[in-house]
């Protein structure tokens, strides 16, 4: 018979939290912020193909930091959930809040029941109707979920970035100002200038005539916005 040493639940949760925190702190950050036409997700990401930011559904986007394989797993599960719900009911019945709840449940189960917690933090953003319909949900590795407003930063330097955003954020920015400011903020903790080819960005643009409001900003566009 194997012998399991006793570990107090408090200690176990604390160890797991520390473990997950460490994993996330090693990675780069993602900023989500509201701008005049919707919601911008932006990150430093040297890879052009391994995305941190992506489309989930017509008006819902996703961003993840931490361990790639784990937030990719979450992204795929989210798309599946959204597409199934949209097919079974109607497209407008797919809501970011439900998705955030599902993520929260799943992460909470993993945190308490699996060998190792996920080392991830994710954002689920939504635009709907006018500016008042914009929502950002921030979900942690342990399943705790918060409803953010105006701007949020997750990942390695989240605290520094939040501090920096707090001093600069202005509601109603145009896209160029939002991108430019966010890139400056991303580079600020280490006083670096991040080049356009190392930036990944996607927007949920509520003014877009297409049903799918998510649009990935490609490198030339980002370079243009930064130069303008």
């Amino acid at each position, binding site marked *: 018979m194997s012998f399991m040493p006793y570990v107090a639940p408090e200690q176990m949760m604390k160890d797991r939290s520390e473990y997950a925190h460490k994993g996330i702190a090693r990675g780069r950050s993602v900023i989500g912020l509201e701008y005049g036409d919707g919601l911008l997700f932006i990150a430093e990401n040297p890879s052009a193909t391994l995305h941190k930011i992506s489309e989930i559904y017509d008006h819902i986007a996703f961003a993840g930091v931490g361990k790639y394989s784990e937030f990719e797993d979450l992204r*795929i599960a989210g*798309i599946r959930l959204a*597409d199934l719900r949209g097919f079974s009911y109607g497209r407008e019945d797919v809501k970011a809040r439900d998705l955030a709840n599902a*993520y929260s449940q*799943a992460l909470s189960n993993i945190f308490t029941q699996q060998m190792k917690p996920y080392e991830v933090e994710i954002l689920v953003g939504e635009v709907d109707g006018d500016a008042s319909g914009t929502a950002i949900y921030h979900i942690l590795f342990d399943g705790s979920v918060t409803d953010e407003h105006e701007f949020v930063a997750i990942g390695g330097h989240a605290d520094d970035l939040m501090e920096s955003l707090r001093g600069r954020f202005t509601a109603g920015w145009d896209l160029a100002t939002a991108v430019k400011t966010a890139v400056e903020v991303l580079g600020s903790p280490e006083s670096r200038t991040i080049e356009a080819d190392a930036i990944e960005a996607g927007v949920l643009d509520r003014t877009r005539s297409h049903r799918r409001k998510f649009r990935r900003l490609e490198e030339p566009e980002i370079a243009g916005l930064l130069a303008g």
Partner: protein
Amino acid sequence: MTDHILPLSGASFGANPSFVDLLRDARPEALAHLHQTVTAEAAAGVAHGTTVLGLIYADGVLVAGDRRATAGYTIADETMRKVFSADDYSAIAIAGAAGMAVEMVRLFQLELEHYEKLTGDRLSLEGKANRLAQLIRQNFPLAMQGLVVVPLFGGFDERRDAGRLFYYDATGGRWEEDDYQATGSGSQPAKNSLKKRWREGLTRREAIEVAVEALLDASEDDVATGGPSVHRRIFPLALAVTASGADEVPEAEVEAAVDAILEVRG
């Protein structure tokens, strides 16, 4: 929400990007109808869509359809939509059992979108055409009972920089056409008409006229195909798929084509 999609399946190797497969796993009841038996009587009372066609022209491919749905000798609907964009660069037109057909279009649209979101890439045009063949094949048991769905699929092949057109039979057989094709009850007169007027390198305006005239010819010979009606403002629907995407042809352009043809015919 669905709990067997989340929590996650860390054990799987490579996510399956097929929405249809996902649906079969997660909501088998959504596809259960494919295995049911329908009586001939019931099948005869089901609304059917009739003539759709596609043709290659200078900028890409045009797919078009009339607006009538019939159930036996009854006109079920005069404004049915049989032409849809499948994704940003392809279009699908369907003839056959209306309920199955519309559901198949919905599934096909989602199949393409789901793949695109999961993998970050659009399927190749070849891949899309093959996937559609598989969806039709699944419908085969119902097709044998009279609930046939036969689509046309047109898309812009970004790798070849050209429009391409595919047609299918009820078994999921798939063929590519280099010029034009029509399917549905009025397809024979439509094809005769297309044969006379189609030539290589048609302009957009010409392509719309050729398509509309073929549908008009079909409606004159086939009771199940609806003709254009200027008074009731019922016009064929057409989608043009080019390098800049799949877009519905504005009604004004279709109307102009109808007017031009009626003027010649007097």
